[in-house]
């Protein structure tokens, strides 16, 4: 990847945080070392997440009540766009990645190769099923769009995503609870923009493992998708 001198002032980092007092401070400090705009969306936390994030230098947007990670990320994206962000990075607090790797995701966007990048685990990175599906889905998506359907898209990412302004404008997360991964990919793909997976070193912390994902999530995501189709 060729190095690109990126104007850091135009990069906005969006962190959705719900009761993350244990780790939010360190994460924000790490991010602030490299990026000027770190936006923490405090999703109705009951601990001192907001205070710690503010202390560490982040701009904090406060959801008065918990609305889910998808909703929180959308709030951050909306805010960043309103503040003329040219690049938007979203990430999870329970980061299974190195903050330095954010630059890897921004590279292909800033040099105009793609509009969006997703971080994936470096260890199991071969052009994944997801990417092959994504390109198939682009075709299906166009057809489905014509039929008025929303294309199905596989679940995505390790919590790290980067978007160009144009891609971010296409994102409108409506499934507030935890299904944003698929929703982001689907909307980017449906918008006809290309995305790329970027292998990122995995740093699985005990913390992340504890929070984890259950495979039953997949069922719930599927259910919500189906219901969202019928309940406009």
């Amino acid at each position, binding site marked *: 990847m060729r190095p*690109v*001198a*990126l*104007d850091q*002032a*135009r990069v906005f980092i969006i962190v959705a945080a719900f009761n993350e007092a244990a780790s939010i401070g360190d994460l924000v400090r790490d991010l602030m070392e490299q990026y*000027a705009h770190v936006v923490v*969306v405090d999703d109705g936390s009951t601990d001192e997440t907001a205070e710690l994030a503010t202390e560490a230098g982040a*701009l*904090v*947007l*406060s*959801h*008065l*009540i918990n*609305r*889910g990670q998808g*909703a929180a990320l*959308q*709030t951050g994206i*909306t*805010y960043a766009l*309103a*503040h*003329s962000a*040219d690049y938007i990075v979203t990430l999870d607090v329970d980061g299974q990645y190195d903050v330095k790797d954010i630059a890897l995701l921004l590279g292909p*966007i*800033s*040099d*105009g190769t793609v*509009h969006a990048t997703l971080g994936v685990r470096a260890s199991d990175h071969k052009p994944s099923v997801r990417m092959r599906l994504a390109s198939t889905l682009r075709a299906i998506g166009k057809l489905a769009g014509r039929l008025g359907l929303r294309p199905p898209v596989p679940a995505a990412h390790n919590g790290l995503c980067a978007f*160009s*302004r*144009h891609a971010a*404008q296409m994102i409108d997360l*409506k499934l*507030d609870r935890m299904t944003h991964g698929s929703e982001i990919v689907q909307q980017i793909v449906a918008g006809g923009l290309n995305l790329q997976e970027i292998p990122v070193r995995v740093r699985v912390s005990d913390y992340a493992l504890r929070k984890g994902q259950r495979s039953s999530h997949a069922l719930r995501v599927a259910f919500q998708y189906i*219901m*969202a189709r*019928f*309940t406009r």
Partner: protein
Amino acid sequence: MSALQTFIVLLFVTLAVLTLAAGLRGTAPKRVVAAGLLLWTFGAIATIWPHTVADLAHALGVGRGADLLLYMTTLSLAVVCFYMYARFRRVERQLTLLVRRLAMDAAIEKSPPQLMRSSIPSSEPVRRSESGASPRLLT
């Protein structure tokens, strides 16, 4: 007509009157009023002449009147659940938009977008194309 039957029929009539009143006051949508009146009328008829339900069940190929009632109840429960879920989702969505708006307003009070932009030291003039099909090259 037994005392119990009379009581139940009176109950249905009361419900029908209440439904109609709500419709006339405009507090309930027409669809709901129509569905309500239909239901109460059916209930009253079924109470006064129980065999009509049995006849209907028979005509539909369902064994007994009670079975028909069970099927209809189950079906309407599913429909009601669906509508409640749709409504719930709508309210959730509105709630999210409201919470987002509040968060944005509070943040914008703290730092208005224009001020923020001008505070960024940028050597390059701001060019913004809303269509922006391709991200511009950065040097």
